[in-house]
């Protein structure tokens, strides 16, 4: 059986939401460490009107 993934197979499926270029940014609200050492709610919506970089990283306390 051929287990390789082929473009023909994938191209036939609708892609769904990919969170990529030109997509609406999903809104969120989450706890964060802000203003030095305060823990408070951070809402993406607060930053409307500014460029924002979401900088995802794997984990605290790791090298790299």
């Amino acid at each position, binding site marked *: 059986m051929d287990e390789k993934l082929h473009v023909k197979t994938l191209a036939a499926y609708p892609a769904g939401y990919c969170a990529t270029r030109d997509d609406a940014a999903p809104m969120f609200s989450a706890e964060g460490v802000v203003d030095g050492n305060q823990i408070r709610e951070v809402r*993406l919506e607060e930053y409307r009107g500014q460029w924002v970089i979401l900088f995802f990283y794997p984990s605290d306390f790791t090298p790299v």
Partner: protein
Amino acid sequence: MTELAAVAAFYPHIKALGAELLAISTDSAYAHLVFKQITPAITNLAAPLVSDRTHEISSAYRVLDRKAGAAFRASVFISPDQIIRAKFVYPKEIGRNISEHVRLLQAFQYAQETGQGVPANWVPSNGSQPAPAEKKR
């Protein structure tokens, strides 16, 4: 960790462009707090450290490593009208180039101001290639 140290060094450039950076991992906010307090290289980092404890944010942005329960090394650039304009995913073992993040913000703003495309390897004509800020002690 070296990535966040590099973010700390370039953060003043990001703020100077009127932008914000939200650093996000699946650690708890309390882990973030302790991490900041005991890691000298990021103790002074002013960028918010966001906790994606539920994995919802990483999942929605399609950057969740489900096996690891952790986010990929991924950067998502969101414009002022909250549309995703760029996204890149890096290997687990290789840290990102934070200077390139600043250049991309500068390039977006240049493109917006001039209505022109931005060629490969463009840098601002005022020569303001971002350099890491002096480390505060």
